[in-house]
């Protein structure tokens, strides 16, 4: 689209590392070939994904505009850049930032690209990447060249590859860390980038580093490969190493990582990661995307067998000099301050003191502090990126990192400079207090730009942020320190499972209309590297979620025991009590003339799931399917109660029953006399809904139906806590899919 696209290669000649320049040239040729129809669309889709060029909502060429489904008639017509993805439709460009580390020049480059190819905004993600939206595919080679000239690559930012290697943004300056993980994260990132052993995965692979096990920053437990810094004394000598975890992940059903080894010496880090990659490529699922993450492999094999395979592979690896070379080179990494240290000023305004309290963290190096720049919804403008570049040049040796909480962290700021840097940040609109507090809501893109979004996570996050910020001066410390995280769907990109208060987008039918909802997920733990996952409680209409936050936090304040965490409080009062507290919020307002309730946040269009049209008002008639699905919801709730009470057998059974109930409700719409026989229900469901693909999710396909089939097959299998928890998560998703399927079935069958 840009007139200058033809000139960037020449303009930047000699400034781009040769290998990268060649890769971009190849990508440009692939673009040309795809335009001529000489590359198959599926192949081209994976090609562009591996370069970080993603699809975006409405790229199928149609959009529900609130009244009707509109065909988007692009100039390139039916030319596609992937299955069902039109060439001209705007896309998202993900930019990998290993360990979140950036310098001033790179910030300036991102500013230029945001302005010229996107809509003026760069978005920091929950995995320390930067994303630009509304990018035209024809502009991506120029965009990649300009990044490459600033030593940034988009390679393997998406697709079935090793994604951004994340690391704690406080690494190297944190008071609690064992040692600085930065060099090792860099070495691993460099080693695995484009590695031949990482090119044949069935799905993505996400590594993460953390400097300690107590705090959250690296979130090792929720990664495919999680590394936590540890030291061990061997023969009187202190040695550096890592606790190595594998098979963690959020996604639809979250898995806690398993400990692979309690001490992997640093020199073994790269070869062992390579061996894991080989085992994943060799044994991991390839055909069924929904079971292709390494967490399924580890779970299916068991950690012992998985370890055995990896160690066997490790023995057979041909030695690679880069194993030591990369680590040794990276260990030379040093960050130095720009000016002498000082003391934290008292401050002369309440705003400044508040900012000091929430956004400043003293470093382990006396006299220095980190400054967190809190970004609303992870968004920063092109001008703010330039201002930030000026600020990091003025006060530091350009030491700034992105953080998984969608912020920037400026490191090595002399405490003597805090008043001045605050003034400069304020002038740039970057001095918002409340970093890492309840106000600092994390969110995925949701329905704004993501093809899979069900509800507006950003709309909800913006609303919560606004309301909480208004009260920020009066918040009790116990509430202030809670985390809120929002995802637009069950895929967990907003990391809702590890929040005190997590929400993910679902939809429900009310009075004949589809209404945006959020599942309330409580009891997750952000600390201890995402120590435990919350469980879904109930679905609440989007417009009632702020009230959910108000009620839960007020109740916590009023009824908590001394020192009791929110997670423990929720555990103590139990799910039944939470349900009582929120039950009335599940219902629509008595006065239904207010259509705002049926719409999503900041979106005046009539809400619809995908482009399926507006639901016809069926008055107050409730169908048998509605009743059946409500019964399934009750059963899954009872399953959660049983899990809470430690009755895993009952928890599993109730979860299974809830899926049967949901399946039966759908079948009953076509076969009213269906019996209660599980065999018949599953058989009829399979024939009528699975084989006809009526139950298929537009993006996840038949994945959720398999949850029912697997549970039905394993009905006699022994139960243990983790299996019961997985099954309940799956049952919840099966019921959500049943709601969507019912919605797609059109006018309800009435009784």
């Amino acid at each position, binding site marked *: *689209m840009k*007139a200058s696209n033809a*000139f960037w290669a020449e303009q930047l000649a000699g400034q781009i590392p040769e290998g990268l320049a060649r890769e971009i040239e190849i990508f440009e040729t692939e673009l040309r070939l795809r335009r001529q129809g000489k590359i198959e669309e599926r192949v081209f889709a994976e090609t562009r994904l591996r370069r970080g060029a993603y699809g975006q909502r409405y790229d199928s060429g149609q*959009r529900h505009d609130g009244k009707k489904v509109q065909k988007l008639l692009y100039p390139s017509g039916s030319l596609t850049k992937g299955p069902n993805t039109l060439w001209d439709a705007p896309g998202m460009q993900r930019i990998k930032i290993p360990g979140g580390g950036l310098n001033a020049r790179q910030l*300036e480059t991102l500013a230029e690209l945001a302005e010229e190819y996107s809509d*003026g905004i760069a978005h920091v993600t929950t995995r320390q990447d930067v994303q630009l939206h509304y990018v035209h595919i024809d502009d991506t080679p120029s965009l990649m060249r300009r990044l490459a000239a600033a030593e940034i690559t988009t390679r393997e930012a998406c697709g079935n590859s090793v994604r951004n290697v994340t690391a704690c943004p406080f690494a190297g300056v944190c008071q609690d860390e064992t040692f600085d993980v930065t060099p090792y994260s860099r070495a691993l990132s460099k080693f695995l980038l484009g590695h031949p052993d990482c090119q044949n995965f069935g799905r993505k692979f996400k590594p993460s580093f953390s400097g300690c096990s107590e705090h959250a920053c690296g979130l090792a437990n929720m990664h495919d490969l999680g590394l936590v810094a540890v030291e061990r004394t061997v023969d009187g000598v202190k040695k550096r190493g890592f606790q190595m975890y594998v098979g963690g992940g959020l996604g639809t059903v979250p898995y806690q990582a398993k400990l692979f080894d309690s001490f992997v010496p640093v020199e073994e880090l790269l070869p062992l990661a390579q061996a894991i990659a080989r085992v994943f490529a060799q044994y991991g699922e390839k055909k069924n995307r929904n079971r292709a993450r390494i967490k399924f492999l580890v779970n299916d094999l068991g950690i012992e067998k998985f370890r055995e395979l990896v160690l066997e592979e490790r023995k057979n690896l041909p030695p690679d000099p880069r194993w030591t070379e990369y680590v040794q080179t990276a260990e030379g990494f040093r960050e130095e301050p720009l000016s002498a240290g000082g003391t934290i000023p008292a401050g002369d305004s309440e705003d400044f003191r508040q900012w000091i309290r929430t956004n400043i963290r003293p470093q382990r190096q006396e006299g220095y502090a980190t400054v967190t720049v809190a970004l609303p919804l992870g968004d*920063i403008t092109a001008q*703010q990126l*330039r201002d930030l570049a000026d600020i990091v040049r003025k006060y530091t040796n350009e030491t700034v990192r992105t953080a998984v909480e969608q912020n920037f962290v400026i490191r090595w700021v002399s405490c003597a400079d805090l008043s001045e840097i605050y003034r400069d940040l304020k002038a740039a*609109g970057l001095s918002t207090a409340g970093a890492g507090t309840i106000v600092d809501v994390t969110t995925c893109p949701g329905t704004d730009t993501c093809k899979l979004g069900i509800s507006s996570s950003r709309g909800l996050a913006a609303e919560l942020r606004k309301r909480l910020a208004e009260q920020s001066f009066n918040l009790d410390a116990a509430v202030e320190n809670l985390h809120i995280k929002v995802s637009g769907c069950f895929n967990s990109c907003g990391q809702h499972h590890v929040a005190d208060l997590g929400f993910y987008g679902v939809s429900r039918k009310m009075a004949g209309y589809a209404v945006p909802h959020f599942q309330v997920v409580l009891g997750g733990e952000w600390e201890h590297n995402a120590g435990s996952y919350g469980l879904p409680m109930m679905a609440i209409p989007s417009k009632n979620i702020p009230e959910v936050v108000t009620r839960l936090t007020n109740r916590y304040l009023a009824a908590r025991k001394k020192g009791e965490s929110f997670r423990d409080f929720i555990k103590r009062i139990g799910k039944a009590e939470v349900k009582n507290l929120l039950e009335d919020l599940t219902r629509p307002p008595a006065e239904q003339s207010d259509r705002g309730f049926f719409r999503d946040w900041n979106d005046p269009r009539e809400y619809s799931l995908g482009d399926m049209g507006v639901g016809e008002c069926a008055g107050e008639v409730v169908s048998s399917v509605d009743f059946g699905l409500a019964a399934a919801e009750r059963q899954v709730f009872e399953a959660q109660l049983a899990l809470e009470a430690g009755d895993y057998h009952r928890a599993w059974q109730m979860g299974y029953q809830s899926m049967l109930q949901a399946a039966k409700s759908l079948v009953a719409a076509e076969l009213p006399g269906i019996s209660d026989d599980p065999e018949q229900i599953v058989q009829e469901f399979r024939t009528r809904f699975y084989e006809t693909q009526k139950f298929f999710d537009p993006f996840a396909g038949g994945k959720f139906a398999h949850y029912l089939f697997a549970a039905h097959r394993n009905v006699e299998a022994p139960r243990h806590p983790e299996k019961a928890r997985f099954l309940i998560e799956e049952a919840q998703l099966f019921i959500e899919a049943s709601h969507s399927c019912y919605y797609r079935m059109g006018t309800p069958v009435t009784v």
Partner: protein
Amino acid sequence: MDIQHVNVKLMVQNPEDADLEPLIPVFHRWIQDQECEELLLDVADYRHVPAGPGVVLIGHEANYSVDNADNRLGVRYNRKALLDGNLQDRLEQAVRAAIGACQRLEDDSTLNGSIRFNRREMEMFINDRLLAPNSNRTREALEPEIRALCQRLFGGAEYFLGHGESDPRKLFSVSISTEKAFKPNELLENLLV
């Protein structure tokens, strides 16, 4: 230089009183009715970002927004797709589109006159640093063309051409202001002459 990607921004009067929320349904309506020449796609809401793009109507060939960049609130037309013709044609097209958007917003009954334009100031940007870096050379090359457009636009009435920011990292820009408040209709008619 084959200059493309002209942006034009017309400043809002009393920006401190402007509420951008009502713009969201207005822009959605523009999409429903495909009100503009460009293919209109979606609305992006960035009101939460200080001095940011505000509310953006994303189109294929161009974006329209009520943007608060540099804390200057205005209606902005951002041309993305290439245009045929010469530079004069491209400048004119962007000015027309921006004025047209202002008229539509001012006439929109749902906004109750909450967004009005000050009719004295506009800014022009070239959103392509390679073809139009923010330098004196670009200024020297473009100024005659911009002046020729202003001459026609204001029907020979007096105007002031100011240089935009000198920071070489920023987009090339100029500010244009008039002593006398201009009428959008008259400007569009002037361009027909």
